[in-house]
């Protein structure tokens, strides 16, 4: 459903030398620009959860931010099947189209709820905003859908008109998931959603995600540094380091039969 080819994001202007020397070094010694991620090839199928693991600074979030158009990649292409049957690179779409793709075909849950939510709006307003962006016009059905989603995410109905800033971290995260799911996107991007949550809330969020995937058959990319989360949620896993993909495979393959030295170290450090 999503095919990413040779995706790269460079922070900094770049110079003729780093253009020419290619992937030799992550940071160009001449102009100081840094590649957040580079040469990324991956695929996500319908109804599949793809995990991305790696240490911090390995380019996981850069990749996700590029896919959600928070940043424009320096090179590479991504094709999303619902957009023109996957015939066009979504990074070459007009800004209007990009907004439409983001609002109709994608949902994103950030690690930090501050980035994904408007803290001063009501929670149902947050969900409604995404619906309006996805061309929902009927106020009654918007309200109904928002209430329903927040209910599924186990936000007490008495509190859905309160602003997320009065919520706990776990509740904010669940409002974020409700918002991301509002338009029923075929692709959901989840960035470190369980870090910062206590264990009991973490278990509930994981169960919710698994349930959504099962019932809605949507594709997901889950970025996490927690191999336990990856093991429980994902079908396939990609391991990143220094902005590159160093290994990919079935999740149990990565965990039980890691090939790359870094992956072996990562797996052997699992508690």
């Amino acid at each position, binding site marked *: 459903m999503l095919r990413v080819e040779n995706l790269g994001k460079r922070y900094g202007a770049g110079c003729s030398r780093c253009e020419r020397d290619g992937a030799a070094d992550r940071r160009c010694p001449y102009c100081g620009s840094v590649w957040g991620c580079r040469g990324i090839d991956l695929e996500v*199928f319908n109804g*599949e959860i793809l995990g991305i693991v790696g240490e911090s600074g390995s380019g996981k979030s850069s990749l996700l931010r590029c896919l959600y158009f928070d940043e424009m990649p320096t090179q590479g292409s991504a094709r999303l099947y619902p957009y023109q049957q996957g015939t066009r690179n979504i990074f070459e779409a007009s800004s209007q189209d990009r907004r439409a793709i983001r609002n109709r075909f994608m949902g994103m849950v950030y690690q930090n709820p501050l980035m994904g939510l408007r803290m001063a709006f009501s929670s149902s307003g947050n969900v409604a905003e995404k619906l309006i962006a996805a061309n929902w016009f009927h106020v009654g059905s918007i309200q109904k859908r928002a209430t329903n989603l927040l209910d599924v995410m186990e936000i007490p109905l008495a509190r859905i008109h309160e602003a997320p800033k009065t919520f706990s971290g776990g509740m904010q995260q669940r409002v974020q998931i409700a918002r991301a799911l509002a338009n029923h996107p075929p692709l959901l991007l989840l960035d470190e959603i369980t870090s910062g949550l206590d*264990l*009991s809330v973490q*278990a*509930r969020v*994981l*169960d919710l995600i*698994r349930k959504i995937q*099962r*019932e809605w058959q949507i594709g997901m990319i889950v970025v996490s540094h927690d191999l336990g989360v990856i*093991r*429980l949620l994902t*079908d*396939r896993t990609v391991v990143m380091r220094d902005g590159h993909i160093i290994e990919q*495979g*079935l999740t*149990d*393959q990565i965990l*039980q*039969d890691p*090939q*790359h*030295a870094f992956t*072996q*170290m990562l797996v*052997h450090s699992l508690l």
Partner: protein
Amino acid sequence: MLNVESLTKTFQLALHRNITVTALGNVSFSVEQGTCLNISGPSGGGKSSLLKCIYRSYRPTTGRIWYQSREYGRIDLAGLSEREILRLRRQEVRMVSQFLHVIPRVPAIDVVAEPLLLLGESSSEARAQASEWLERLGIPSHLWDAYPQTFSGGEKQRINLARALITSPRLLLLDEPTSALDARSAGVVMEILSDLKDRGTTMLSIFHDNRLATQLKDSQLNLTRPEKREEMKPI
């Protein structure tokens, strides 16, 4: 049904001076449909590694694993794409290990029902079938809504079995499925397994208990420790 040709599996321990460890050395055998092959051998002899290679939790180093699948016909599991492997695992190949890894705080009955939901079964039907299996395997009904983390080793093992059996797999890989069970529960499990076998499921099994193995097996494969297990590779 299953035809394994000169399968080897080696591990390269990059963190330990690149030592190469051979887990499986040149194993060949075949299994007919509806029969059970029992794998025996000393511990460290590669019994689990063999099952994991077939289930593709391990990437086989060399060799071929021909499997007659319902979906794709005769295929080589060693060279199959990840997507196809995932599909086969959902539909016809299941593995039962000694360990249970599930999302915390999900009731046992939903844990068992999940594989059916993934095949598109309705939730009420899946739960009904799950409760049938839990009952057959002798899990008391007041535990069905409890979380499997709190279960005893034997109960966890039976949950694991129920999860695998509920989809009526065509190929079943059993890695010590009764190691934590008492004699009576093990007897129940063996009965269910031989019933499945009679209905056409092919099995590869590892049992520590020879008597249990004899009840189920139609043929026997003896794995010995591969010679030259470790060799240093010049760096």
